[in-house]
Structure formats: C-alpha cells, structure tokens
C-alpha cells in the first residue's frame, strides 16, 4: 500500500510537470476566445517561443533573456493573428492554422541556419536554464510530519519557477476576468461587441489587448518546454500540446479554474499513460497507453456533443466585428 501511495504521489508530481504548459496555453486560450477570437494557434506560438527561448538562452547564457525574447516573438505571432482576423476580418481558424504551420517550418529552418544541428538547438548547460527549486526544510518535513511531509517532499518540492507561475496564472486570469473592469469589458466583447462599441470602447483595441496577453502566456509555455523541463529546442517539441490545451479550455467551459482541473486531468492521463504500458488490470486486461493518450480528445468530443452537461462558447466567437456606420 505504501508503495502504491508513493507511486501515486510520483504520478501526481509528473502530472504537475506535464500540465504546466497546458495551463499556460489554456489561460491564453481563455483570454483570446473570451474576447471573441478563436485561437488554434496556441500550438504554433508555443513552438516559436520554445525555439527562441532556447536559442537566446544559448547565445546569452541567461534563461531570463531567453524568456523575454520568447515572449516578444509569441506576441508578434499573436499580432499577425490579430492583423489578419481583427483588422482584415480574415477567417480566424485559417489564420491560426497558418501560424501553426508557419511555426513548424520556420523554427527548423532558422534552427538549421543558426546551429547546423538538423533543427535542434545545442544542449543548454544548467546555468542557462530554469532549474528546480528545492523548498526549505524538505528532509525535516519528511522525517517529522506524517503524510504531509512526504507530499511536501515528493509533490511540492523540486519544481522550477514556471510551474508555480502557471498555477499563479490561473488565479491572475480569474481575477482579471471576473474582478476587474477590463475583464468585464473583455468578456462583453466576446459576447456582445455592439454593446461595448456603443459604450464608446474600441472593440479592436480590447481584442488586441486580449490576444497580446494570450501571446505572453503561450510564450511562457514555450519557455517552460525548452529551457525548464527540456535542455534545448527539439523539432516539433510541442507535439500537439497546444491542441490538448485547447481541448482543456473547452472542457473547462472557457473558465479559468475548471480549465485548470481539465489540464490537470489531461496531464494526469498522460502521466499515467507513461507508467501503465503493459500493466494488466483485472477484468479490463492490458491497458493500452496508445489509446489512453487519445482519451483527452475523446472526452472533449463527448463533452462538446453535450453528453456531459451543456457547453456554451462565447457568443460572438469567430465573428469579425464590423462597426456600423
């Protein structure tokens, strides 16, 4: 039993690590989509940011400068999205798709041009990465506090600063969306942009602000992948995480806290998938980790189809706003 408990704690620990980029991207998606802009380019922005973070951290030796550069590039990608769908009223899905495809091509081409390593960046030394932080009194807690002591050591300690930032981003998102005037306007612009417009607030400006925030958050997700958990950029390293985050955002019904739980659930499924390959379970037989990986997508489809409660996306989502004259 203790062994099971320990294994479970380790699974939760890796859940948190796997879920971190999902949480950043899901919050990014919430900002963007709550303002009425569909954002399937979470994946592409995260990929670009991951590359820029690793390349800059390698060149400068500082993960912090890498992070800033990554966030700037991710914001630029957001601005392209905004230029296409807010200013030119282009199709938001097509624009997002273009950014994703562009990102997977550009990162490799520039990577080869700069480093000649087949699209990878050189491995980053410890000093150019965000390393895990051991919390104080870990051993003292483990020896003297029952139950919580081991949770403290195995689950809470030894995470890098971005894991904590991701969790904090949920609170910040919640606060901005539901407790500030800006958040109220942002939600209104995604539901009824005419109302915001007639109140004399620029819909264009609100939407641009929303997607810039989304850009910052996707940037952090990329930074996490290449300079915190990873030690450099690898071709296609986001591997569909942006789409899982999109699924988590929908699963959380465009709300920050439920979306956090969806990210943790999907992260947990992935963490479990990595551990159960070949494990036999009574009555069910061998669990296939290949199929377990598809579970987040399947759950999202089932939820969207209204089989587990209804889902209402922001009302004005996907529609370009045309100012009446």
């Amino acid at each position: 039993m203790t062994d099971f408990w320990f294994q479970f704690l380790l699974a939760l620990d890796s859940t948190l690590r796997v879920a971190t980029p999902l949480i950043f991207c899901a919050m990014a998606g919430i900002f963007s989509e709550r303002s009425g802009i569909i954002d399937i380019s979470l994946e592409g922005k995260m990929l670009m940011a991951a590359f820029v973070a690793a390349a800059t951290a390698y060149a400068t030796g500082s993960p912090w400068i890498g992070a800033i550069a990554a966030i700037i590039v991710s914001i630029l990608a957001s601005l392209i999205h905004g230029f296409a769908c807010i200013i030119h009223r282009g199709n938001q899905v097509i624009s997002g798709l273009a950014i994703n495809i562009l990102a997977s091509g550009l990162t490799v081409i520039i990577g080869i041009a700069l480093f000649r390593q087949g699209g990878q960046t050189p491995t980053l030394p410890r000093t150019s990465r965000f390393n895990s932080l051991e919390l104080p009194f870990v051993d003292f807690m483990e020896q003297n506090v029952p139950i919580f002591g081991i949770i403290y050591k195995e689950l809470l300690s030894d995470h890098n600063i971005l894991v904590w930032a991701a969790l904090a981003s949920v609170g910040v998102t919640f606060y901005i969306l539901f407790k500030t005037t800006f958040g109220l306007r942002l939600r209104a612009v995604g539901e009824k942009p005419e109302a915001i417009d007639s109140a004399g607030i620029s819909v264009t400006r609100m939407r641009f602000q929303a997607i810039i925030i989304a850009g910052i958050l996707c940037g952090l997700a990329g930074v996490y992948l290449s300079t915190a958990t990873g030690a450099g950029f690898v071709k296609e390293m986001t591997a569909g995480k942006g789409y899982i985050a999109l699924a988590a955002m929908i699963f959380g019904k465009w709300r920050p806290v439920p979306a956090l739980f969806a990210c943790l659930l999907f992260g947990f499924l992935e963490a479990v998938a990595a551990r159960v390959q070949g494990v036999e379970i009574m009555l069910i037989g061998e669990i296939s980790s290949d199929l377990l990986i598809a579970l987040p997508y399947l759950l999202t489809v089932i939820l969207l189809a209204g089989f587990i409660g209804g889902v209402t996306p922001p009302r004005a989502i996907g529609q370009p706003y045309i100012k009446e004259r």
Partner: protein
Amino acid sequence: MQASRLPRYVDICVIPILNLLTALFVAGIIIAIIGENPFTALSVMLKGAFVYKGGLGYTLFYTTNFIFTGLAVAVAFHAMLFNIGGEGQAAMGGLGIGLVALSLGGILPVLVVIALAILGSALFGAIWGFIPGYLQAKRGSHIVITTIMFNFIASAIMVWLLAGMLMAPNQMSPETISFQNGVMLWQFHDILNRLGFDIGRSPLNLSFVLALICCFLVWLLIWRTHLGYRIRATGFSPKASTYAGYQPETIIIITMAISGALAGMMAVNEILGVQHRVILNFTSGYGFTGIAVALMGRNHPLGIIFASLLFGALFQGGAELDFEFQTITRDMVVMIQGLIILFSGALAYMFNPMLEKLFLNEERLKEPNND
C-alpha cells in the same frame, strides 16, 4: 467572407496570383536572411519538380494527394463547413484499404480486391467525416474542434493497431504485412516501360486518373445536381434553406461524409499506389495542405487541380533543396505552405481595397468615353 465588387476575372485570377506572389516574396526574404540566394533556390526547385528525369512523375504523384485532400476541404467549404480533419480521415482511409486487402486478398480475384479496397478507403474516410458532421448537425458541437480532435483520435487508433494487432510479425517498425501480390495500382513508369517509353522511375500511379475523375464528379455534384444545389444553399444561408425545406442538418451530415470519403481516398495513392501495406504517418500533413489547396483553388475542381500542381511542384522541388543546399531543407516548403495559407486564406482580402480602387476607377474613367 465578404462580397466583392471586383470584376470576376480579378476575383478568380488576379487575387490568387497576387496572394501567391506575396507569400513567395516573404519566403524569398526569409531565404535571403538566412544567407542563401532565393533565385537559386527557386531554380533548383523548378528543375527538381519538372526538368530532372522522374521529377515530373513525383510532382504529379504529390499532386494526386493534394487533389484528394483539396477536394475534401472544398466540398465542405461549399456548405460553409471547415473540415480540418483530412489528416485523420486519410489515415482511416488507409486503415480501410488495409483491412480489405489483408482480409480478402487471396480469396477474391485481385481486381475485385482492388476495387473493394478503394471503396474501403472512401467508406472509412466517410465514417470519420460523418461523425463530426453528425455531432455538428444534431448536437451542435463545433466542426473545427471535433475534426481536430478526430485527427488525434485517428492517429492514436493507427498507432494502437499498427503497433499491436495488425503489426507484421518479426518486425520492429509499426506496419502491416505486405498485401498479396498484385493488390496495388499500376505505376505509370511501368506501364510506359512496357510500351517502350522510359520516363524515369516515380511513384506516380493510376490514382492520378482516379483523382481527376473525382474532380469531374465533384464539379458535377456541386454545380449540376440537386444535392449540390442544396449543399451550396445550406452554406449560403442555413435559415433560407430550412425555409425551402432542405433540412440543413441532413445536408451537413451528407456533405461531411462526402468530404471524408474524398480525404480517405488519398490513401489509395499512398497505400495502394506505393507502399502496398499500411504504414504509420503516411498522411504526412497532406490533409492540412488540402486546406491551402482549396483556398488557392477557390473551391473549384479546376482551381484545385492547378493549386495541387503548384503544391506538388513545391513538395518535389523541396525534396531537391535537401540535396543542393546545406541550410535549406524540405521544411522550407512547410513554411511556404504556412505563408500561402496566411496570405490566400486569412489575408485573402487584404488587397481588395487597393484593387477596387484600381479597377473600379478605371471603369469609371471608361464610362465617359462610351457615351
């Protein structure tokens, strides 16, 4: 999409070409920034795609893939549905071919197996389009999200089957055993060799003819049948078509099934034409390229043929880049594809105000002369 006041020929020819040139121009700048000559790269690509022996065959082989996936996206677009699930539908199409070929090969005559395998690809693709269509029509789930999710689900199913039940014994890579001898579509270089012509080896096979037939059938469907009219009416205004008694729900489901069937048939080219067994990831992003193809081809079969040829040349020419340059690889093609989707899709109307000024002013100037 917004209505254009421009003359028809500007809308159909000038705008796509302008958008394409913008995309290529940006790609050229990027090539220049990484220190290579964009014109050398272009000439290498053109030679690789059309001039070198077998190059044209490869170009037309890729063209075949893009015709199928482009048609799939276009048919759905006519009903204002955005099918991004071509990737998953094509993968399932490959599974359909595999199941037919592996279970019936050796039992039925070869030609019958081939015909059934082609139908199998269409059927499996259709199912993978039907379900998102059904969920959109009856349960209100957004087709874009559902088809994205279905791509991932299809990919997981393929890994599960090809690395499990269907995996060839004594084999390390996830793929099935080869189909029975003869269960394949003939390749053009073989056919022409027998007739005494040598065109160089390429994987171009009879699927190309099948793709062209599909183009004709799609044209017939959309513009010459009642169903096609209902599809376009549903896309134009679901409310009006309900009023006309067209049941948009049914139309959405049928359209998505047709769209999925077309995407599924892409597997005919790759699996029956070349691999003769089911392998993992044979779709290689061609489903997504179909979106760019449909956008460039303006959802018309003829436009799709030209756009597919363009992308076929890009893919084949892109392979040539790998040999000639150290710094430019096939990934350049992925980037160009992204730029084309951006400029001819999301920013399709960027040049409209400028062009309207240009062409409409001209017409206004002409008017006094006509008096």
